[in-house]
C-alpha cells in the first residue's frame, strides 16, 4: 500500500428522506480544518435516490468536491446497498481520511466498510486533529467508561476512518457563493440482489425531541441519593419549563429510561441553560453537555470536575438548594401573577 496515493479528507453526508443530517454539516466544518492543515481538498460523498439537489448545500458548508451516487435502490439506507456504493468510490478515489456521523446509520455503514477495506475505524470520536508531519488522524474519545480520553491512531492502513458524535463539532456558516466540483458516479445495483427490505420508516420524536428541543435541561446524578430524592428535579423542571435528564449512573440504577441519558453513550445536548445537579462531571458525561450556553453546577464536593466546565458553581447540598430554587420561582410567579417559564425550541 503506497500511502502517497491516498489524498484528501472525505465526509459521509447522511441524508434521510432528502434532508441532510446535522452531524454531516458539522463534520464538513471539522473536515475543513483537517483538509486545510493537510493542504488537500475536502469532499462530501452522498448516496441516495434523487439527491443531486443536495450537492450545492454540501459545497456551501465547506466542501470542495461532492461525490454523488444516485440510484433508486439507494432510496432508504441499507447496509448492503450503501456499502456497495462506498466500496465503489473509496478504492477508486483513495481519500486518506473518512469521517462519518456516529448515528445508527453512520456507525453501521462505517463498521461494514472498515471490514471490507481492511482498515482502522475509531468509534464515537469527540476530538479530531491531524499531525501534519506524518499525516496521521488523531481521533480522540472517552475510554474505559469515560473518565479518561484515548487518542486512537491508524498508522499502517488507509484510509483512516472515524465516526464522530453529533453536536460536538461546529458547522460553518453556509456560504452559497462557494463553488465546487460535483462528480457523479454510476453504479449497478439490483433490488432483487438485496437481502433486506425497508418496509416502513416511522418518525417518533416524542421522547428524544424532549431533550433535543429543550432550552433548559435539569440533569441529575447519583449524588441525588435515591430515586425519591430525584423527584425534586422533576418538580424544578415542571416549575421552570425544563426537561429532565440523567447521567449514565442514574440510568443504570433504573431511575430514568435510557432515552434521557446525557453523555457519550446517551444524548448530546446543547441547551441554553443546563443544570448539572449532584453529578460529578465524568468525561463521558461532559462530552454530552459541555457545549451548552450556560451551565449551572450544584454539588457538595468543591473538587468535583463539573465545576471546571460550569459557568456558575454552587458548592452545596442539592436537596437544600433545589427546593429553595423551586420556592423562589413559585413566589415570583405569585408576585407577577402570571406565567414564568422557559420556552422550548421551535
Amino acid at each position, binding site marked *: 500500500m503506497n500511502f502517497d496515493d491516498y489524498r484528501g479528507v472525505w465526509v459521509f453526508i447522511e441524508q434521510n428522506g432528502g434532508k441532510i443530517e446535522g452531524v454531516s454539516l458539522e463534520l464538513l466544518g471539522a473536515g475543513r480544518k483537517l483538509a486545510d492543515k493537510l493542504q488537500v481538498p475536502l469532499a462530501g460523498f452522498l448516496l441516495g435516490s434523487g439527491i443531486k439537489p443536495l450537492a450545492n448545500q454540501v459545497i456551501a458548508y465547506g466542501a470542495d468536491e461532492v461525490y454523488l451516487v444516485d440510484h433508486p435502490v439507494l432510496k432508504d439506507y441499507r447496509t448492503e446497498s450503501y456499502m456497495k456504493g462506498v466500496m465503489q468510490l473509496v478504492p477508486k478515489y483513495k481519500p486518506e481520511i473518512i469521517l462519518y456521523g456516529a448515528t445508527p446509520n453512520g456507525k453501521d455503514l462505517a463498521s461494514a466498510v472498515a471490514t471490507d477495506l481492511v482498515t482502522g475505524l475509531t468509534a464515537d470520536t469527540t476530538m479530531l486533529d491531524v499531525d501534519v508531519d506524518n499525516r496521521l488522524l488523531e481521533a480522540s474519545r472517552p475510554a474505559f467508561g469515560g473518565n479518561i*480520553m*484515548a487518542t486512537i491512531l*491508524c498508522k499502517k492502513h488507509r484510509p483512516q476512518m472515524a465516526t464522530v458524535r453529533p453536536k460536538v463539532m461546529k458547522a460553518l456558516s453556509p456560504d452559497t457563493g462557494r463553488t465546487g466540483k460535483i462528480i457523479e458516479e454510476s453504479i449497478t445495483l439490483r433490488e432483487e440482489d438485496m437481502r433486506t427490505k*425497508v418496509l416502513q420508516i416511522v418518525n417518533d420524536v416524542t421522547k428524544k425531541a424532549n431533550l433535543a428541543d429543550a432550552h433548559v435541561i435539569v440533569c441529575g446524578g447519583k449524588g441525588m441519593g435515591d430515586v425519591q430524592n430525584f423527584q425534586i428535579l422533576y418538580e424544578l423542571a415542571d416549575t421552570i419549563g425544563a426537561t429532565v435528564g440523567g447521567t449514565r449512573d442514574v440510568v443504570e440504577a433504573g431511575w430514568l429510561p435510557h432515552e434521557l441519558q446525557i453523555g457519550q453513550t446517551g444524548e448530546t445536548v446543547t441547551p441554553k441553560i443546563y443544570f448539572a445537579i449532584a453529578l460529578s462531571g465524568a468525561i463521558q458525561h461532559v462530552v454530552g453537555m459541555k457545549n451548552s450556553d450556560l451551565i449551572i453546577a450544584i454539588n457538595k464536593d468543591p473538587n468535583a470536575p463539573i465545576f471546571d466546565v460550569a459557568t456558575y458553581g454552587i458548592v452545596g447540598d442539592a436537596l437544600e438548594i433545589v427546593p429553595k430554587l423551586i420556592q423562589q420561582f413559585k413566589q415570583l410567579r405569585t408576585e407577577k401573577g402570571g406565567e414564568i417559564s422557559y420556552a422550548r425550541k421551535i
Partner: protein
Amino acid sequence: MHIVVCVKQVPDTKIIKINPKTNTLDRRSAPAILNPYDAHAVQEAVSIREKTGGTISVLSMGPPQATAVIKKSIEIGADRGYLITDRAFAGADTLATSYALFKALEKINKEIPVDLIICGKHAIDGDTGQVGPGIARRLDIPPVTNVIEVTEVNLEEKTVLIKRKLSSGYELIQAEMPCLLTVEKEINQIEYSPMPNMIKAARYEPVIWAVSDLENVDRVQLGLKGSPTIVGKMFTPPRPEGGKKIEGSPDEQVNQLMDILLEQKDVLTLQSSKQ
C-alpha cells in the same frame, strides 16, 4: 433454527477505577460481568426459541475465565457454549476481533448450520458497536444494527421482521436469514433464570478452542498484529478554568442564582395575567 449469540466478558464500568498515576484501567477494582447488552441478546434468542424451537449457542472470545459469561448465558437459557481463547487473540481491536469470531462461526456453522446471529449493540468497556457489523460482512450476511424488536420469525420463508431504532424513530425491516442482529437493551427484560438452568449452568463446561482448533486461519489478522488501530496516548483533557463560584449561605446562593436565571431573557417568558 440455530441461533448463535456472541457475548463478551467486560469489567463492570460502574465500579471500575482508573489508576491516576498510570492512567490505566485498574482491572482488579471491578468484577467481570457479562456485557449487559449481550444478556439482552441471549434473552432475545430464548424468546425466539420459544416460538420456533431450535438451539441456542453462545460464542465468546477472551481469557479462560471468560467461561463465566458462557455459564451466565446458559443460566439465561442458552443450550451450548464455545470459548475461543489463545494468546494470539490478545490485543485485538474491532477488526481483529471480528476476524477471530468469524473463524469460530465458520466452524460452528459446519457443525450445525447457523440461521441467526445476535450480538449486543456494543460492549460497555469499548462502546464501539463495530464488531457485529464486521462479523456480518465477513460471513457475507446482512447486518441489522440497533434492533428494538424482533417482530416475527418466518421459518418457511426464512425471513425475520425487525424494528430498528433510528435517530428519530424506528424502521421496520425484513431480512433474509441467515442474518446478524445487534440489540438494544430496550428489546426485552431479562427474566429470572429457572432453577434447572442454574443447575445446568453450574455444571456446564463450554467447548474451548485455541487458534490451532480453527481452520484456515491467517494468523497475521489476529490480535495486536491484525489490529489497524492503536492507542496513541491516554490523557485527561486540559481542565478548563471553570466558572464563577456562587458563595454565601444557601439562601444567598439561591438569590444570586435567581438573578442569573432571570437574565436569560431570550428564553424566559414572563407572562403577566394582571395587565
